[in-house]
C-alpha cells in the first residue's frame, strides 16, 4: 500500500475576507488544508487550539494584532520554529520589509500579486514542487 503524502496546512491571516478568499483559492489549489483568521490574535488562538500550520500568509495592517506583532509572537515559541512565515501586504517600504524579515518572516510579497508570484515564492521555500501548476 502506498502511503499518501501528508497534507500541508496554511493559515491565512488578513482582515479582508475578499483577500483571504483569493489566497485560499491559490493555496487550496496547491493541496494545502487551510484555516483563516482576521487578525494575528485570532490566528494565535487557532494555533493554540490545535491547528498547526506549515505556512502562514500574513497581512501587515490589521486590527487587534498586526502581522509584525504576530511574527514576533510566533518566533518567541521554539515549538513553532518550523512554521514558514510569509508576509502578503501592501506595506512596501524597504525599512518595513527589513524589519519583518529580521523578526522572522521568510518571504515577503507585496500586493497586488498574481497567483504565480505566490507559487514561485512557495517553490523557493520548498513548500511546493517546481512546476506544480504547469
Amino acid at each position, binding site marked *: 500500500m502506498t502511503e499518501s503524502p501528508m497534507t500541508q496546512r496554511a493559515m491565512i491571516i488578513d482582515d479582508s*475576507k475578499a483577500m483571504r478568499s*483569493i489566497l485560499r483559492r491559490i493555496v487550496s489549489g496547491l493541496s494545502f488544508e487551510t484555516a483563516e483568521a482576521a487578525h494575528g490574535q485570532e490566528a494565535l488562538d487557532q494555533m493554540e487550539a490545535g491547528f498547526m500550520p506549515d505556512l502562514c500568509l500574513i497581512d501587515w495592517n490589521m486590527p487587534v494584532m498586526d502581522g509584525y506583532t504576530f511574527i514576533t509572537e510566533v518566533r518567541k515559541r521554539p515549538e513553532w520554529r518550523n512554521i514558514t512565515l510569509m508576509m502578503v501586504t*501592501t506595506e512596501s517600504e524597504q525599512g518595513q520589509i527589513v524589519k519583518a524579515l529580521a523578526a522572522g518572516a521568510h518571504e515577503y510579497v507585496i*500586493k*497586488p500579486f498574481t497567483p504565480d508570484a505566490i507559487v514561485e515564492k512557495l517553490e523557493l521555500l520548498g513548500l511546493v514542487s517546481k512546476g506544480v501548476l504547469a
Partner: protein
Amino acid sequence: MTVTTQPSGPELADVHAIVEQVWSSFLGDEEPLLPRYADAAEEGTPAFPAEHVWSAAVSVHGGWTGTVTVELSSSVAQSLTRLMLAMEDEPLDDAEVADAVGELVNMIGGNIKSLMPGPSALTLPVVAAGRAAHSSELAEVARFDAMWNGEPVRISVHAPQS
C-alpha cells in the same frame, strides 16, 4: 532655518499605472478599465455618472500626508466583490461589498504611499455607501476617472493645501 514642503501628490500617470495593475491582478483583463478623460465641453470636471455609489478611503501619515479615495458605482462594487470572493449568483451582503471595496483602496493606497517620501503609515480603510466626503483642509491633487463595464470608477488623491 530649514523649511520643507511635502510634494503635493503622485503623478497622475503613476496613479493610473497602479490602479491598472491592481485591477488586472485581481479582476482580470477580460473587461479592461478604460480611462475616462474630461470632455472639453464639461470644462474640466467630469461628473460621476452613478446614483448608487460605494466609496472607500485610506490615509497616509508621515513623510507624505494625504488621503486616497476610491469611488465606484454600486454595480462595479458588487461585480468586483463577486470576482474577489469567486461568487456567482449567491446574494451579497453589504459587509462583503464593504470588505472588497476596502481591500481595493488598501492596495491602491499602499502602492501610492510607496511612491511618496517615507517613512509613513497607512490607516485601515474606511468604507461607506455613498460619495466620499473630504476635509476642507485637503485639496485634490490627482484624480483618475475610468469606466468598467460601462460604469464609473474614480480614484482621487487629496493632500493638505499648501
